Every structure is written in structure tokens, then in C-alpha cells.
């Protein structure tokens, strides 16, 4: 049903719609009395008041000029690294403070002057302007429709179907070239998200000291961050590699480890988990040593590191992947392989 079917009486009274200005009378006490008479301001009557307004406006414009001079003086005079104490904000950069305030004042005073001028000295008499319907009158509408029909007929588009169809075909196909051109925006994912830099034999290097870790370096209750041996900050691919390979290491009393596989993959209670949250990939940073819970600061997903890092709170959908570790001949912690599942957020091909 189209809206045309709505019976007229459901629409508000026609006379309201057209807003005919009614004259106030006994018949309709609610009728529109028309625009109220204009009321004069002091400035309209009293020239002295008007002159006072004039002076105020001129003063505001002068303040603006002075503020601009102040801006230039600050720019030239204040060293860019000077810090000042401003109550109650605290220590802030003096140049930024001075430039901002002078610029702000210069602009604000222009605005205040203009508005004051408009409010007190320009005419404040309200006037009414007519509105005209947005839609075209019926003759125009009919003319445009007729013109269009004429034009369409002359093009013979409707009659010559072959032209029409092939044209639509051509127009529909050519944007495909544009789509093709987007192909090289990036490589195909392949299995890149399934693998990290870790492989058998890579030592676990302490993120802070940049030294390989010994089991004795990992104290109970501490949280240690580690990266694979050979990955250095200056490397071209550092950011992308660390985004997947970052590890966190804690030591838990072996009897407190509830998950059997976790215990197997640990070394003397030292367990290594991916640091990248399985929700949307923030690095996890908070460790609660009594409970062995780690917390992701982004959306508070909480994982129990003593129980296979399963999710105990928050929006993460699965446990953190564990890295199987051992100790090499020199007594350093090493990986016994890559993670056996993708690290970080889940994705369609993860399975």
C-alpha cells in the first residue's frame, strides 16, 4: 500500500498545514496573531548607548590586534623548550601556552566584536520571507517528463535492445580492471598467520637484557618477556616478526600446573606462552602471581596460565598458544619447535 491510500482525515487539518495566518477573533482564540511588533533596544533610542556599544566593539578589535602582536612577540622571544608552571595545569611548554592563548584571544576578540556589533547596532527587526514549494509545479513536471520521453525515444535505446544490452555489459565489465589493479595491495595470506619465527633450537632471549635466558633467571612470581634468538630491533622485519613471536614466561610450581600438556611442554615449571592476546591481538602485560592469571589491558580478557592459559574472563575466544620449551647443552632455554597453532586473533582459515 502506498501512502497515497491514507485517507485525508488522518492527516492533520489542512488549514494547519498551510498555516494560513488567522486573525485573532472570538471564533478562534488560538489563531496566529502575526509577527509581534518590533521592540526597540536602548541602542536604537539612545545614541549614547549606541556610542558605548561602538566603543566596546572597537575595543575588542583593538584587543585582537594587541594579541596578535603578543603572538609574534612570543614566537620570537620564548625558547621552544622552556617549561613553566601554571596553576592548576602543572608544568607545560611555555611557548605552546603563550602562542595558544594569544592566538585564541586574537581570534576570540574578533568574534566577540562582530557578534556584539550585530546584536547591539545592526537592525534586529525580524522580517518574514516567503517559502516556495520545493517540488516543481505540475506543468514543469509534465514538461520534464515529456522531454525525457522524447530524448529516450530519439536515442532508440528501448527499441534497439542489442545496443542497450551490450552497452550495459561493457559498462558493467570495465570496473573489473579497477578491481584487478587492487590485487597487488598485498600478498595472499597463504599460511603466514600459522607460523612464527620460532623453530626447534632457537634460544629464548630476554627482551629487557637481550641475553639468552637460563632457567635460573626465571623466578617464581615474575613475568618475563622473551623473543627468539637472532631477532634484533634493527631488523627490517622486526615489527612484523615480534607481532607474532613475542613470548611471556612464568614459573609455576609444577604441582600447581593443572593441565597435563602444559606440564609436559614446560621446563621445571617454566612455561612459555604467546604474549599476543587471542581476542584482537593486544600484547598481554599484567600478571597476578598468586592466581597465575594474566590480563590483557585492552579488553580485560583473563587467562589462567596454570591451566593451559584458558580464558576465564573477557571477550577472548580461545586459550593462548603455548610454546614447547627445553634447555640446550649450554643450559639456556630453547624452543622445541614453533607454536602448534596460530597465535593472536582468530580468523576464518584458523580452524
Amino acid at each position, binding site marked *: 500500500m502506498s*501512502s*497515497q491510500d491514507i485517507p485525508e482525515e488522518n*492527516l492533520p487539518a489542512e488549514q494547519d498545514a498551510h498555516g494560513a495566518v488567522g486573525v485573532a477573533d472570538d471564533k478562534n482564540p488560538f489563531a496566529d496573531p502575526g509577527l509581534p511588533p518590533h521592540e526597540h533596544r536602548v541602542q536604537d533610542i539612545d545614541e549614547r548607548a549606541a556610542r558605548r556599544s561602538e566603543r566596546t566593539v572597537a575595543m575588542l578589535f583593538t584587543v585582537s590586534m594587541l594579541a596578535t602582536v603578543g603572538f609574534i612577540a612570543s614566537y620570537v622571544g620564548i625558547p621552544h623548550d622552556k617549561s613553566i608552571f601554571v596553576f592548576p595545569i602543572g608544568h607545560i611548554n611555555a611557548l605552546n601556552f603563550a602562542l595558544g592563548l594569544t592566538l585564541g584571544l586574537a581570534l576570540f576578540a574578533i568574534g566577540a566584536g562582530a557578534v556584539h556589533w550585530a*546584536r547591539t547596532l545592526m537592525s534586529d527587526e*525580524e522580517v518574514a*520571507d516567503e517559502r516556495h514549494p520545493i517540488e516543481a509545479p505540475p506543468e514543469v513536471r509534465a514538461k520534464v517528463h515529456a522531454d525525457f520521453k522524447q530524448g529516450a525515444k530519439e536515442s532508440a535505446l528501448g527499441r534497439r535492445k542489442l545496443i542497450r544490452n551490450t552497452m550495459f555489459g561493457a559498462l558493467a565489465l570495465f570496473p573489473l580492471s579497477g578491481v584487478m589493479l587492487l590485487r597487488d595491495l598485498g600478498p595472499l595470506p597463504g599460511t603466514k598467520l600459522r607460523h612464527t619465527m620460532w623453530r626447534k633450537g632457537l634460544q629464548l632471549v630476554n627482551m629487557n637484557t637481550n641475553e639468552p635466558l637460563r632457567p635460573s633467571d626465571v623466578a617464581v612470581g615474575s613475568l618475563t618477556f622473551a623473543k627468539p634468538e637472532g631477532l634484533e630491533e634493527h631488523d627490517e622485519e622486526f615489527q*612484523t616478526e615480534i*607481532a607474532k613471536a613475542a613470548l611471556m614466561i612464568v614459573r609455576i610450581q609444577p604441582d600447581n600446573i593443572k593441565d597435563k600438556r602444559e606440564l609436559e611442554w614446560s621446563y621445571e615449571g617454566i612455561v612459555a606462552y604467546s604474549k599476543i592476546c587471542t581476542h584482537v591481538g593486544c600484547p598481554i602485560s599484567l600478571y597476578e602471581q598468586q592466581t597465575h592469571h594474566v590480563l590483557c589491558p585492552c579488553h580485560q580478557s583473563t587467562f589462567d596460565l596454570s591451566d593451559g592459559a584458558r580464558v576465564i574472563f573477557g571477550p577472548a575466544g580461545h586459550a593462548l598458544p603455548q610454546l614447547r620449551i627445553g634447555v640446550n647443552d649450554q643450559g639456556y632455554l630453547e624452543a622445541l619447535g614453533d607454536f602448534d597453532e596460530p597465535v593472536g586473533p582468530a*580468523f576464518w*582459515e584458523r580452524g
Partner: protein
Amino acid sequence: MSTNESSESRARGKAPAGERVADWADGRLGIYSLAKSNMRKIFPDHWSFMLGEVCLYSFIIIILTGVYLTLFFHPSMNEVEYHGSYVPLQGQLMSEAFNSTMHISFDVRGGLLIRQIHHWAALIFLAGMFVHMMRVFFTGAFRKPREVNWLFGFLLFVLGMFTGFTGYSLPDDLLSGTGVRFMEGAILSVPVVGTYLSFFLFGGEFPGGDFVARFYSIHVLLLPGIMLGLLVAHLILVFYHKHTQFAGPGKTNNNVVGMPLLPVYMAKAGGFFFLVFGVIAAIAAIASINPIWSMGPYRPDQVSTGAQPDWYMGFSEGLIRVMPGWEINFWGHTLVLGVFIPLVIFPLVLVAIAVYPFIESWVTGDKREHHILDRPRNAPTRTAFGVAWITWYMVLLIGGGNDLWATHFHLSINAITWFVRVAFFVAPVLAFVATKRICLGLQRRDKDKVLHGRESGIIKRLPHGEFIEVHEPLSQEQLHTLTAHEQYAPAAIGATVDENGVERKVKGAEKLRAKLSEAYYGEESQIPKPTVEEYKEITSGHGHH
């Protein structure tokens, strides 16, 4: 022709220079025809009409400061060592993007100010658009003929959010990088194509070396370009439709009452630009924003606590935080509902308000132009819907800051999360019901005022000892203003039997519309406005109350 020319040459030399320049331009551009209809164009005045101006001016400020920033900003992710004048970060590795933002902040005089103005203006721009949109919504200014302009405005808001997000990500600092990672994780959750989208957007694996440059061209060219086009179209339509106005004496649907563009409106609006700019500059002088130096450069394995996006992205943050972590694995695939559902609800929250005008016009079936604004109370169902929507948005904003609520008010984060989950469904309903009742109460009060006059505050003691308050009758202006609004009758389903006695099928859509119309305009949803008869009956017997 020749007479024309001679008259032109005669005028030359005599007319003031400005006039001659204008004549010259008119001969080439036809500016006088344009000026004829626009120079003295009437603009109605109401404080809420300034909200749109706030948006326009902050957009201009953003463009001016943004162009300045491009002179110094290097959209590159090449790693460099920092040697600028901020001591704590010296020697640290960072992307060129971060390095150049540090340079702007510490070594370009006034650079920090421009950066902070740019960022503050962005926040105010989006807040302005939000409030402006609400003004348009609650006053019904989106009704015919302004539906298209409502959509333009809505698009500006959405694009503004993305422009803000991409700009926020450019400095490549720890906080914004975390936001980009969030986005990447969300894209990965898209079924079937998510991984591909992510690889194409980032030029490979996250973070790669491309996204700053790509976001840069999106941020400074693509989105602002589209927005500029929309903004101009928006303003042209405002001019063309002429501004709406509230009901009042002398104001009808066929006129527009106010002051002329030249000089009053131009002075006020032009002045207002400087006021907005001045205030934003002062804010940027005293309130630091996005101090990237204290966060440091982005590293995918580091994070700062209390990571929060800018406010306009807060509701998406809320969605993602309170959603349970559902993941479904089947046939070697993973459906990451815990992230994907929020990603789908995100646009739905926005679209819910965008399509509202079309729903309302379908329910009312009203095809007329509307230039007189509604007072929110006189459209209770619409107002209730709007408040419900805002409530929804706010609930999600609360969810987005659940950790802040927890730490500031010592609440359990678990409790807040559950509160938000329940409130997501319940709070809008409660808000809807409550708002509708308040609107009806206000309508009732208006009716009382019309029929019985205004409470004067004067207490009178009657001869037999009773105290009454004297009510003053309203002026005719007030009577008119309070009764000028239109009231629809609910649309009934038309006759189901046509003139030949053939029964016609009533379609589902028709039934739905009748039901909605009843909900909008039935007895429970509006207080019939006082009629002339009622008024006369009461006022003729003076002294009764």
C-alpha cells in the same frame, strides 16, 4: 549592444571600485542573480541552530591546521633513531611517522599548538555533529523535504569517525598502534575474506611497512575530499530549502522569519567562526592532547594500560568488550562471532538512527513539506525512540570504558560487563517508556496552561477560607504557540471490501503500518490538544479552576 557598451564605459570611473569589480564579475559569472536571492536571505535564530555552524567551523579549522601538519609530517614507517630534543626518547628506534610527529611537537615552533588544535578540533567536530544530528532528530527537521540532507549529514558523521580514526593512527604511537591492531583483529574475524582484507589493507602481515602511508592518503585526501563535497551539498540544500523554524506568532509553514544574511547573520555567523577558533586555540594552549612522547613509538609487543580510543570510537570499544568470546570451529574454519558480531552491530547502531526519517514518513504517510519544527514533547514516540537510541549509545560508551569505571569507582569489572550486557537490551526499552511518559506529562501541562492559564504564584484566600492559586490567562501569542502543533490520527486499515463487494487482501505491511501508526498516534501516545470549544467553555465561566 553598442548602447550597452557606451553606458558601461560612461559608468566607469564614477562608480566606486568595489562596485566596478562586482559589475565585472557579474558580466562573467552572473553573480547578481545569485546575490539577488541570497544576499538578504532570512535566517531564523535559535541557539540550537548554531550547532551546525560549530561543525562547519571546526571542519575549516581542521583543514587549515591539517595542511600545515602535512608540511612537516612524513608518512613513512621506515625505522629511524630519534635524535630530537625530547631527551627521554633519544636513541630509541621509531618510525619516521613518529619521529616527524615528535619533530612537530618539540622542534617546530608552534607545531605542538597546531597539532593540538587539529586534534581538539577533530573531537569538537565530531561532538558537534553528534549534537547537531540530535537537534535535527528531536525537532523533526529531517521531515520532507530534508530527508536527503539528513542522509548527507549522517554520512558526514560516519566519514568523520573514520577520518578521525585514520588521523589518530598516523603518528604511529603506542596508543594508536594498539587501536590499529584492534582494527586488524576485527577485520580478521570477517568470514571467508577477512584474512585477505587484512593482507590487502596492510600490504601483508600486521603491521608491515605500509599502513601509515595508506592511511595518510585516506586521511588527508580521500575522506576529506568526499566530506568537502558532502559538506558543500549539505549547505547548498540548507540554503535551497531555507531554514526551519519553531512555531510562534507570525511563523507559518509558508514563511521564514528571522534576520537577513547581510548584515546581521553574516556578522553573527562570521563572528562565531572566530569565537569557535579562538576557544579551540585556547583549549589547545592549556589542555594537552595525545602526548605521543609519553606513550612512545608503537611496538606490537608493548602496550600502555588504560588504552582508550577517541570518544567517537568508544561505542565500538564497548561492543567488543562486552561481547562474549564466541568462536565456532567447523570443517577446518573458524567463525569468530565474538568479534564479528560487534563488527556487524557497529554499523547497525548507526544505521538505526539514519533510516528513522524514512520509517516515520512511511508510518505517517504524510507527503507534505514541513518547515515548522516540532517541540520534542509533541512527538512522543519519536522523542522516545531518539532517547532510547542515545541510551543505547551511552551504554556502549560505558562498556568501552569498563576498566576506567572499575578502577575509579572500585567496582568489579565482571559486574560492569554484566551490567552493560543486560543494559544493552533493557536500558533502551526503559528509556523509551520513561521518555514517552515524560512527553505526555509535558503535553498535559501545556494543555492545562492553555485552558487554565499560567500559575501566577499568587495565592488568594476565598471568602469561605479556601486557598487557591490565581491563574493568569495566556496571551494570544502563547495560546497560538502552544496549540500550533499538528496531531495525526492513527491510520486505520481501509475498507477491506471494495465497492463491488469483493474482499481485498490486507497485506502484512499494511497491517504493520496500522499497528505502528496506532502506537505513534493512538490514545496512549498523545494528549489531544485543547480545542476552541473546550477553551471557550472554561473561559466563559470565569472564576472556576
